[in-house]
């Protein structure tokens, strides 16, 4: 941990994401599903006649949840019933600490790092914290003293621990290529470009006058270098989140509400907010690791800052670059959120044995094959370069 890094901006963004994105996600869910299903969606909530295309519905939701009666099942375990939503939401919130909104900027004598905790083992931290999220759902199912709750709790435990394996193994290829677990280093590594036709020169097939080898340059984004890992990781994360086609534990048509069944009011609200925040975490993580982080393609950090410094001077150039990078990061995050909602409203729910089959028999062998192929490709490329 370096002393002297100035993190209040990162902390402010972190708080803003928590407070703003989570209720906004309910609006996204309503409006996007409405768009996809060719209807209008919820737009009746208003304050003094101003209906902001349904943006006041999250406010109405929060008021409803806070003022609802807090029911409690007879024979259930009061302490665990209250503790479970808290345990379920905390991992989603603290996962944000390692996701970088931007790089490092020097302005007015301080170095502004746009990440709350630049851990050397950033991705492992997210996995460790994500594995603690299992407890919230399992305890919720058990404390409810309800058959459907128990069934939901058992299913959710099995599903979450199964997909943690595929989740961890699938990104080993990404670690091998970038050589680091630190998300800011991955962000910087994705700003480099490589020549697509470079192998022609390394194999000795190009003469001295071949200018066309340098023509096609591709940024070293994770999705380009590790496409299979991108899809496997995204699937595993969506299964961890119990969202999208993997919401068997909260299967609305099968076991009523699964482990949610005895929850009402703000405790239910906490569970739901936890799921939305986890969607934002997933989007942030995919952006940081696979979609190039905070940077614009073909425009590395220092090039942008130097270009702006001609017009504005070094301090303001850094601040403006910081703003640009944060905006680019959030645009990518919003795209990933849109994509996850797209999947959720398109694909029907999997059957439970299909979920287990996918996790163990399809995703895990593919991830291991990905590691082997990545290792082979790295060896070949290194052999060609030397």
């Amino acid at each position, binding site marked *: 941990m370096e002393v002297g890094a100035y993190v209040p901006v990162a902390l402010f963004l972190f708080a803003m994401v928590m407070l703003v994105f989570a209720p906004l996600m309910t609006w996204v869910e309503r409006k996007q599903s409405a768009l996809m299903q060719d209807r209008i969606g919820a737009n009746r909530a208003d304050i003094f006649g101003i209906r902001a295309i349904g943006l006041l519905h999250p406010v109405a939701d929060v008021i409803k949840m806070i003022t609802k009666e807090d029911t409690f099942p007879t024979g259930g375990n009061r302490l665990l019933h209250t503790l479970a939503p808290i345990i379920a939401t905390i991992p989603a919130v603290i996962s944000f600490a390692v996701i970088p909104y931007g790089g490092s900027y020097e302005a007015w004598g301080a170095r502004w790092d746009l990440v709350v905790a630049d851990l050397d083992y950033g991705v*492992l931290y997210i996995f460790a914290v994500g*594995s603690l999220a299992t407890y919230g759902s399992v305890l919720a199912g058990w404390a409810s003293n309800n058959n459907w709750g128990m069934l939901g709790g058992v299913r959710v*435990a099995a599903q979450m621990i199964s997909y943690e394996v595929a989740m961890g193994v699938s990104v080993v290829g990404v670690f091998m290529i970038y050589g680091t677990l630190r998300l800011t280093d991955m962000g910087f590594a994705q700003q480099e470009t490589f020549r697509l036709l470079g192998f022609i020169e390394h194999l000795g097939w190009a003469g001295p006058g071949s200018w066309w080898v340098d023509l096609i340059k591709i940024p070293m984004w994770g999705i380009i270098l590790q496409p299979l890992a991108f899809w496997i990781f995204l699937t595993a994360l969506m299964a961890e989140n119990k969202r999208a086609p993997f919401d068997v534990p909260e299967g609305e048509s099968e076991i009523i509400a699964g482990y949610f069944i005895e929850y009402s009011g703000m405790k239910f609200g906490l569970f739901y907010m936890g799921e939305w925040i986890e969607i934002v975490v997933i989007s942030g993580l995919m952006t940081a690791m696979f979609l190039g982080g905070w940077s614009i393609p073909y425009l590395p950090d220092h090039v942008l800052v130097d270009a702006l410094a001609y017009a504005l001077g070094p301090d303001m150039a850094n601040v403006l670059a910081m703003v640009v990078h944060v905006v680019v990061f959030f645009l990518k995050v919003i795209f990933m959120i849109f994509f996850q909602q797209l999947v959720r409203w398109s694909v029907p729910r999997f059957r439970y044995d299909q979920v287990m089959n996918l996790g163990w028999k399809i995703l895990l062998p593919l991830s291991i094959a990905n590691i082997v192929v990545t290792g082979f490709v790295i060896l070949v490329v290194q052999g060609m370069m030397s």
Partner: protein
Amino acid sequence: MTEQVLFYVFSFAALLSAGGVVLNVRNTVYAALCLVVSMLSLAVLFIMLSAEFIGVIQVMVYAGAIVVLFLFVIMLLNLKSEDMGAESQPLLKLVGTLLILVVSVKLVALLSGTRKSWPELDSEFGTVKAVGGVLYTDYLLAFEIAGVLLLAGLVAAVVIGKQRID
């Protein structure tokens, strides 16, 4: 100063929750949750000892998978506390506690005689890169055998736990 506060808080948390594991007679789920708290406190102590990789692995594997397995079995069996069977006799409890107290006091007295200070370490100690480097070069055989052991345990657990379809 920060280090002292962190150490005392988390070591007491670890010891008190370990006591909670032993003393929670009526509810096994409470005992499992106390075990989780104990392991998380130990993970903090590991990170204070510059063992970052081991601390994160402790949370990920121990607190996040092994105790979940315990909770899973406790929930699946769903036994009420009445049919847990009687706990041990009071005489055994008394003698056991006295014995443990005597041994603990002796151990603490023995350990507090040692005086050594921490050596200076570079910032790369205990990072994923450093531990991985040692694991894949000096201890490669142990690593591979650990992999085979995990495979054997996997097969054994499936075979033993499977319901026989007669």
